[in-house]
């Protein structure tokens, strides 16, 4: 049910984002989605790719510090209040969201959000119990180009 997300440390200066992206592109690895958190000094690039183990190896071999995290992809109705409803459920279950970002593709009337939970297993249970659809890796990979 969980997805593997790669995070890497980047200094916040011109050109630093391009280099790792080029390194994985050279291996023919496509980025399904990404998010970037940054401060004035540094940034954390988070990537979801199909061949995460290969991408991790490529990046580490090129000298980046890469971290592997399990995240959860959730299908939400792409209409006003769609996300708010999901958040209400998580809040009621006292689940802490470390951060979240939107997946770059939508599917029909659904949008996919990527959540980083402190406790992903319990989060998945709560989401399923409340009738939400958690998108696993295989399903996600099946509809991306």
């Amino acid at each position: 049910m969980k997805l593997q997300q790669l995070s890497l440390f980047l200094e916040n200066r011109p050109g630093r984002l391009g280099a790792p992206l080029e390194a994985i592109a050279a291996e023919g690895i496509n980025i399904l989605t990404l998010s970037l958190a940054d401060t004035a000094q540094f940034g954390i690039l988070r990537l979801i790719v199909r061949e995460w183990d290969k991408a991790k190896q490529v990046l580490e071999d090129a000298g980046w510090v890469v971290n592997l995290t399990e995240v959860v992809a959730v299908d939400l109705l792409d209409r006003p209040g769609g996300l708010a409803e999901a958040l209400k459920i998580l809040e009621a279950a006292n689940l802490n969201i470390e951060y979240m970002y939107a997946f770059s593709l939508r599917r029909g009337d659904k949008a996919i959000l990527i959540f980083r939970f402190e406790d992903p297993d319990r989060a998945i249970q709560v989401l399923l119990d409340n009738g939400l659809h958690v998108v696993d890796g295989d399903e996600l990979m099946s509809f991306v180009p």
Partner: protein
Amino acid sequence: MSAFIGNLERPDQYPIWDEPAETLPRAELERLQLERLRDLVVRISRVPFYRDQLNHRDIGPQNIRSLADVRKLPFTTKADMRRQHPLGLLAVPRKSLARIHGSSGTTGKPTFVAYTAKDLETWSTLCARFLVAGGVKPEHTAQVAFGYGLFTGGFGLHYGLERVGTTVIPAAAGNTRRQIEIMRDLAPEVLICTPSYALTIADGARELGIDPRALPIRIGHFGGEPWTEDMRREIEDALDIAAFNNYGLSEVIGPGVSGECPARAGMHIQEDHFLVECLDPESLEPVPEGEPGELVITTLTREAMPMVRYRTRDIARLYREPCACGRTTMRMSRVTGRTDDMLIIRGVNVFPSQIEEALLRVEGTTPHYLIEVSRPATLDEVHVKVEIHPEIFSDRMDRMQTLCERISREIQAVAGIRAHVDLVEPRSIERFVGKAKRVLDKRGVSEQES
């Protein structure tokens, strides 16, 4: 730690090798120092370098009325020694020398240090005193894994051990495998080397499939390079020994200036032979009691090459409180830095070693760091660049910011300055072979001198 060394909680129960000298009442000790200081002023008038300066200042033994009058005497620096190369600072005829050692330092050609037979005698006594203070007994066997040669470490400790009556194995430095074989064959209880070499021996034993704690060594006397309390714990734990620190420098004699007693709360300075000042390296005024400053050493008894107010560039603190061991001598802390590396940031003296200590307190931070000092407007600004590595990297921004804040807090606690912590990519800080460059001072030279 092994019970071999006895109860270190009771420093008063250990023998003192040179009891009358080491426990001399303070007033008597200071009277002796003053007498020897006056005599020194007479003896150095045979050295042109000192004679000219004394004449210029119109100073003679009659001007030395108290120990504080040492401040009327000129300083001696490493540069002075180089200018007097090779033996311009001799105070005795060349033919009365018994030995010449040398110090390579990290820069330039070696500077020579000369000894008369009596100097060698004194040196042996000084080393014997700190060895016995650190648990060495005549019935022990000691392995000396220091270099023998121009370097003073090997010979100084060798003669000190012989003076105690210990069996000496002059294994000399290097060849770790052979060191371990000797230990297993001859079962020495005492190891003499640099603290880092003690850890190398422990690692070497593990590589050979030998438990380093099972080696016969129970006491270590380590010196020749600065080390930390953390390193002491690491060595003691790795080898199951009691580790003692000692201090000295070849310019004034070699090892034997000071060493630890069982209390291990600072190193006892052998004040009957050395007059030690602790000065602010900028103003050259004494620092308040217990504050860190540059050690400035005057040799009171050296015959061949007396040193007057030798600027060691070593930073340490001095303590005058009486010690539980019964010795009456003043103690010094570990050397915590070198004035060569000292930075003055917003008026605060800061040493790269303090930044390193702060980083060590934060688990997982790398030894790769760079201190950048700039003055964007009127105030100094410090950025400490720390390389990121897998153990400290998190995908969570809050964790990363907490890490930066923790490092910053530790720097504040250790060095007393506020520093910006910049995490940088791996291998982005330049690597150096040998002595690492830790500081990039981007302030103008004129500003620095102001």
